[in-house]
């Protein structure tokens, strides 16, 4: 997610290639487009400062029915995540000190090694939710394949064992938080990690592969109290193993997971 800002200053200076006389003659037909704007003479500084934007999920909002209803996505993405983005932009407007970071970098900087700055919550929640939408797909679930499956079997024993561990982590998380399948950089292995509130594994320099939102707002409208049913629906019907495979392929450029098994003729 890139960062951009529109400063009013670039609107105020028209680019003119001809002399100053023309600039003063407002009836000239060669007025530049900028001069022809209706508020050109009032030229109030219209401060439009937007640092980060709300990214849409890679599918329509009703695509995850019946496991995640359109109504839930509209509230979760449209209201909660939009609130985080707008809150983040408002906080960043206050001063320039955090200007210019990508969202990844902003999350790591505002985490501040354990004593998070006030912007951390909004920044991390924007990041987490983008990651979460991308971790799901309509018609997801099933099993991973090939190299990813082999890595899971190597680190968890079997795919069923990993699934049980993931579900158990989601059910035993007290309060609000996230459950992740993470590739640990130093240990060079996959692990299931649970974090509370907005914390996310990139602050510890690990590489997340799957995320599951277990804040109550993520499932309450559809499943009410039943977190177990929600997690099972996620695991069996929503999680996108294609995306996870793509993520782990990219991660292997940074973490040495051993020799690839190239079949010898």
């Amino acid at each position, binding site marked *: 997610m890139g960062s951009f800002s529109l400063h009013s200053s670039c609107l105020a200076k028209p680019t003119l290639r001809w002399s100053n006389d023309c600039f003063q003659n407002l009836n000239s037909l060669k007025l530049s487009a900028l001069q022809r704007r209706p508020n050109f003479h009032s030229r109030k500084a219209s401060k439009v400062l937007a640092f980060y934007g709300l990214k849409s999920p890679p599918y329509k909002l009703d695509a995850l029915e019946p496991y995640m209803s359109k109504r839930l996505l509209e509230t979760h993405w449209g209201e909660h995540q939009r*609130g985080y983005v707008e809150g983040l932009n408002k906080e960043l407007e206050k001063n320039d000190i955090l200007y210019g970071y990508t969202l990844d970098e902003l999350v790591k900087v505002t985490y501040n090694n354990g004593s998070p700055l006030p912007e951390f919550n909004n920044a991390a929640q924007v990041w987490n939710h983008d990651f979460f939408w991308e971790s799901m797909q309509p018609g997801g679930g099933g099993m991973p394949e090939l190299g990813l499956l082999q890595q899971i079997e190597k680190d968890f024993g079997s795919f069923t064992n990993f699934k049980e561990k993931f579900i158990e982590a989601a059910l035993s998380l*007290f*309060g*609000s938080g996230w459950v992740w399948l993470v590739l640990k950089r130093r240990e060079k292995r996959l692990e299931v990690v649970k974090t509370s*509130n907005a914390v996310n594994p990139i602050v510890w320099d690990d590489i997340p592969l799957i995320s599951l939102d277990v804040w*109550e707002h993520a499932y309450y409208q559809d499943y009410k109290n039943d977190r177990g049913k929600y997690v099972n629906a996620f695991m069996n019907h929503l999680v996108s193993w294609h995306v996870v495979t793509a993520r782990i392929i990219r991660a292997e450029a940074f973490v040495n997971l051993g020799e690839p098994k190239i079949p010898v003729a």
Partner: protein
Amino acid sequence: MEMHLPRRRLPYLLPHLLPSQLALPPRSLLPLCPQTRSIPIPPMALRAIASRKTLAALGSGLRAQARLATTAAAAAASRGLVTFSLPDLPYDYGALEPAVSAEIMQLHHQKHHQSYVTNYNKALEQLEDAVARDDAPAVVKLQSAIKFNGGGHINHSIFWKNLAPIHEGGGEPPKGSLGWAIDADFGSWEAFVQKMNAEGAALQGSGWVWLGLDKEFKKLVVETTANQDPLVTKGANLVPLIGIDVWEHAYYLQYKNAKPDYLKNIWKVIDWKYASEVYEKECR
């Protein structure tokens, strides 16, 4: 709603006898039988036993856990394991409309609070087993479950007492010594409500916002706790007077994302009788 008898253990005098070896009396006499497992009693019968009056008599100011006033429970307490049970609400689920919807009240009480009670009992049972077999790591590992579920039970028990329907006094600011103390410590009633709402809105994730009394300094404080931590975790001298649940399950179905609206509206059903009682007791 389903109520469960507290589970009773075998008396310690007969450790060698397995439950199956003891003769089981006819079902009608089971509530008095020593090795009863949790048997659901029909709600009407239970209501007759544990009426509002007995509950009020039992629920002393400070002890947040409400126990059913049955002879069975008293017997259980004197014997082995003590179990906790879901306290009854002194009002209907729909009585707090429109501030808190009936759907939320029902889910909150029957599902969330009940699961805290069930898991608390389970954790305590496991704790007793771990202590009995001298398993220190297991004892330590159970602490977080006890803190979470036990805290949930304590906090919600206080919460139900803090709420009342509008026609029964909900929403009226406190009078008497507690009312004066609020004015003294916060400036005005409005300032106090404003502070509670600000703290509640600013709380990230799940938690509670409390009006507490610092016993040592005899001062009122506004505090927040995370997840289900009871107020004592913020200070051993703090006594909870009013608690507002700001977990999402407490307001989501009705207010969705708008936590500030929930906080503004819940004051219409906050009842000060329990808080005044506790305050007067502590400040005597």
